[in-house]
């Protein structure tokens, strides 16, 4: 196992480390063939990119395009870029390269001319993106524009009608929108990284002059970290739930001892540090992270803080699971995972008490335990640095997740009172809508494919590019959405079928969100998939169940639906002679099978 020392790392050290990393030495890592295209020379980035990615066990084989050929390499289908067959393309443009007049003569431009020039660059990237997708379909990491090396008007710059800052803002905003509107393109936020590092430290004038390599060592480190984090978010599924201790974590002091008035929480130090942490936690909840409480306390004391403390921002309702009692915390976390129907390894534990943290590491090694610093001023940073909740995209479902879980707990109450499962399902008045997978749903599908563990038959973690390829090769996908009288669960399942040989298809992917398992939605999805496969001329279908540590809830799926075990590779077979009836305990609105 290669050990990467913390930054700062010298250039020689980095090169030596980078040279020791290879596919042969680290076969268990995730490997990417990365193409880097820049306005300037990008070779100096390589050892930085390789070392920062290695921290996350991601390996990079890098091809550097010739400087100043971003558009040329992308537009020409026979270019070196495409011959190199990359898994991802990183593009690092500079304003001086794309529009010298915007970079150097912006004082001479009218607002209309400025808009026109900005629009031209935006259109150029539109062409670049289209060409790369046509040429290879690989994901693009599109860098936005960093600050050029000088501004024209000194002290007057800020009050100009057209300032360099204004130009960059308008240009980068256009690129941001463009990236949002196209699938498989991520904005690579160089501008933000430059602001964090400081533009004064960003450039190395000497290297720019003698080697067209504009970046300082600090800038190279910043770019490499940004890339490593982006790639990490592609391969590491984000955690789902933050489990919080209460005393000395969400407020200062022990509420059971000092009482409601005695705890530190309010506008002055140290209460404001805890308040700040609460704000960050609430923002995480806005991102769809579930919150849970695990505290050794009298429940009444804690509830009183949430209901009656004048400064407390978190409320009892923000917590999707609440384990406040005197039992041990490993038991609490097990129960939280069970209540929320998520894996133990989706939990992140945040507790100021080192003894509790050690206990958790020993009892439940799958839980991510954050090393909480002594001062509450550093809590937010500790949470950020863990990258536990880092994700490459936030979907509508994410942001509503806490609401979805509240609906779910209302449903479980109905279930407890129902006489049979069948009655329960009928009482939900569920409507399941099935439709052909379309582009707009891609981000959510990629996310589900990347993180669904339990009801996932094949657990094939396709990237967006791989999914696009499956569809282009003649496959198709069906997505299932569900709503009922408690609310809209959104997109809850997806199935993808691909042709194998004439008349024989395979179910490449079949997965459901754990929220709806056991209500027959999976049967509706399978029935629809079978109809659509048949409409495409298939007479036989193979399903695959590939067992993992987690997907046993799906183990009997095919046998339950009349498939026969074909004996090899977890493949299950069915002849599509008869049309499978749709479940009648809910309404199904589906696509025409010829779709």
């Amino acid at each position, binding site marked *: 196992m290669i050990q990467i020392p913390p930054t700062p790392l010298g*250039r020689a050290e980095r090169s030596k480390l980078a040279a020791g990393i290879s596919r042969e030495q680290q076969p268990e890592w995730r490997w990417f063939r990365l193409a880097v295209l820049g306005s300037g020379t990008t070779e*100096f980035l390589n050892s930085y990119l390789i070392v920062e990615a290695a921290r996350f066990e991601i390996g990079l084989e890098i091809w550097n395009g010739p400087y100043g050929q971003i558009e040329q390499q992308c537009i020409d289908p026979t270019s070196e870029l495409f011959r190199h067959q990359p898994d991802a393309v990183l593009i690092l443009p500079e304003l001086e390269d794309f529009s010298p007049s915007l970079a150097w003569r912006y004082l001479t431009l009218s607002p209309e001319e400025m808009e026109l020039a900005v629009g031209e660059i935006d259109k150029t990237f539109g062409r670049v993106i289209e060409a790369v997708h046509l040429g290879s379909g690989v994901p693009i990491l599109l860098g936005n524009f960093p600050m050029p090396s000088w501004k024209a008007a000194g002290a007057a710059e800020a009050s100009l009608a057209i300032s360099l800052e204004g130009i960059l803002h308008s240009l980068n905003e256009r690129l941001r929108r463009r990236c949002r509107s196209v699938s498989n393109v991520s904005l690579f936020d160089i501008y933000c990284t430059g602001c964090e590092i400081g533009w004064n430290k960003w450039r190395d004038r*000497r290297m720019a002059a003698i080697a067209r390599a504009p970046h300082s060592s600090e800038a190279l480190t910043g770019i490499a970290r940004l890339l490593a984090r982006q790639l990490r978010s592609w391969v590491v599924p984000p955690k789902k739930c933050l489990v919080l201790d209460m005393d000395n974590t969400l407020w200062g002091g022990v509420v059971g001892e000092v009482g409601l008035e005695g705890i530190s929480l309010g506008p002055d130090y140290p209460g404001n540090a805890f308040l700040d942490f609460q704000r960050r936690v609430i923002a995480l909840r806005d991102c769809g992270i579930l919150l849970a409480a695990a505290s050794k306390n009298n429940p009444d004391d804690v509830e009183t803080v949430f209901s009656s403390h004048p400064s407390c921002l978190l409320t009892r309702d923000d917590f999707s699971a609440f384990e406040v009692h005197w039992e041990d915390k490993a038991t609490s976390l097990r129960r939280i995972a069970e209540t929320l129907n998520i894996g133990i390894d989706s939990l992140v534990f945040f507790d100021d008490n080192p003894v509790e943290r050690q206990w958790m590491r020993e009892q439940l090694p799958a839980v991510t335990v954050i090393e909480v610093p002594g001062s509450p001023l550093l809590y937010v940073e500790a949470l950020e640095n863990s990258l536990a909740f880092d994700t490459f995209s936030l979907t509508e479902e994410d942001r509503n997740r806490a609401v979805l879980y509240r609906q779910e707990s209302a449903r479980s109450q109905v279930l407890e009172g129902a006489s049979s499962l069948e009655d329960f399902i009928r009482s939900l008045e569920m409507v399941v809508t099935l439709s052909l997978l379309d582009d707009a749903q891609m981000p959510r599908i990629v996310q589900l494919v990347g993180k669904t563990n339990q009801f996932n038959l094949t657990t094939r973690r396709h990237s967006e590019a791989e999914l696009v390829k499956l569809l282009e090769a003649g496959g198709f996908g069906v997505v299932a959405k569900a709503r009922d009288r408690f609310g809209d669960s959104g997109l809850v399942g997806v199935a993808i079928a691909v042709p194998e040989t004439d008349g024989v298809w395979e179910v490449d992917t079949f997965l459901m969100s754990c929220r709806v398992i056991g209500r027959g939605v999976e049967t509706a999805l399978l029935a629809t998939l079978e109809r659509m496969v048949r409409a495409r001329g298939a007479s036989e279908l193979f399903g695959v169940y590939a067992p993992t540590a987690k997907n046993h809830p799906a183990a009997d799926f095919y046998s339950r639906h009349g498939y026969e075990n074909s004996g090899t590779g977890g493949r299950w077979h069915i002849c599509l002679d008869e049309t499978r009836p749709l479940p009648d305990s809910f309404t199904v609105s589906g696509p025409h099978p010829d779709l």
Partner: protein
Amino acid sequence: MTSDDRSQKLRHIISALMDVPTDEITEDSSPDTLASWSSVAHLNLVVALEEAFNISFSPEETMELSTVRLIEMMLDEKIVAA
């Protein structure tokens, strides 16, 4: 740090950057004798020396550092002068 120490350190840096064993590096080693001493590796060497010895090179100087011997002379000059 003596001149010999500096020389040792230089060889370690070159070894790390050019991926060659230190004992294969001689006073006459240069971009002409080591295949891995590319123009990119050369500039990485310049930055690595600046980091290691807390000195800086002008653009002109970076181009003059063309053999191990010349680099050693330049290091002696810069560090003794400082």
